[in-house]
């Protein structure tokens, strides 16, 4: 048989916080036990009053609203529509891709031309020491 001691932890809980078995056990015990029924009713009343608290509002200190409005005015961007932001993001990505692609292509071209460049020619000159990796880094 379920005792008051066993039921006590279940009394403050809401139905959705309990298993079916716990709900059934609690209901069965509360039906027969006036003391636990009173407790359960008190918790139920408490739960209702707590839910009502969500509708009560406190007044913030004077100036809080103005402070918020000033802060968001400073931070706010002109456009917040996600479709416009997405379009702007896509356009930015396309531009960035083109810039990177052009940079890569021009670098490849310059590498292909490198053997005929002035630095290569200087390396091929006779009587000049071949630069070691350390010297190359220093230069």
């Amino acid at each position, binding site marked *: 048989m379920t005792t008051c001691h066993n039921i006590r932890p279940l009394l403050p809980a809401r139905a959705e916080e309990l298993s079916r078995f716990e709900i059934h056990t609690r209901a069965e015990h509360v039906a027969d036990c006036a003391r636990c029924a009173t407790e359960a009713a008190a918790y139920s009343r408490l739960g209702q009053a707590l839910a009502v608290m969500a509708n*009560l509002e406190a007044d913030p200190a004077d100036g809080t609203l103005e402070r918020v409005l000033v802060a968001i005015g400073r931070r706010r961007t002109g456009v917040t529509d*996600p479709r416009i932001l997405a379009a702007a993001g896509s356009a930015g990505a396309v531009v960035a891709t083109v810039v990177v692609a052009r940079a890569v292509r021009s670098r490849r071209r310059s590498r292909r031309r490198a053997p005929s460049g002035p630095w290569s020619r200087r390396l091929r000159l006779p009587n000049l020491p071949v630069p070691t990796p350390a010297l190359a880094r220093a230069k």
Partner: protein
Amino acid sequence: MEVDRELVEAAQAGDRGALEELVRRTHRSVYTCALRLVGNPDDAADVTQDVYLRVVRKLGGFRHEASFSTWLNRVTTNVAMSTLKRRTRRFAVEGAAVPADTRDPAPEPAERAEAIALARRLERLVAGLPEGQRQVLVLRDVYGQSTEEVANAMGLTPGAVKVRLFRARERLKAELEATEGGQVVALAGRRRATGRRS
């Protein structure tokens, strides 16, 4: 806190006036939620400002899947919890976190008058709970978040949330009964009330 969908959409589209109106309509509710979570008016005002800065950044991503007030409560919860993690508490909870002048958003039917009166008394008692218990109770029982949502917001396991919730409800009920009993007895004579509370 009732907010029209049209107003939210206008704010999302970049209408500055709509955004300001949104703030005007919701700032008391945000402040109250923050006050209940962080426990003192100064931090609650800071949290309120941070909430709207985050709202400005994230409003474009709001898809109206939940109500705006539910979304705003979640943002407030996250900002309040981040604030609490960053800061050392400056005030004791007792006596500091009570919304001094709670008011009804709209006239209520007579049958709810008692529940509202009780809710007003509860504000002070909730404010007196230990911080961890108070936050869990406020999020779960006042703002109706699920146990999992509360656990995520507070960085706890669902089991830990349930334990805190149980303790908070038990303590609150006991204190409410003591207060109500004290008040009732006080009408008949102070001697018995003093004996009960000591």
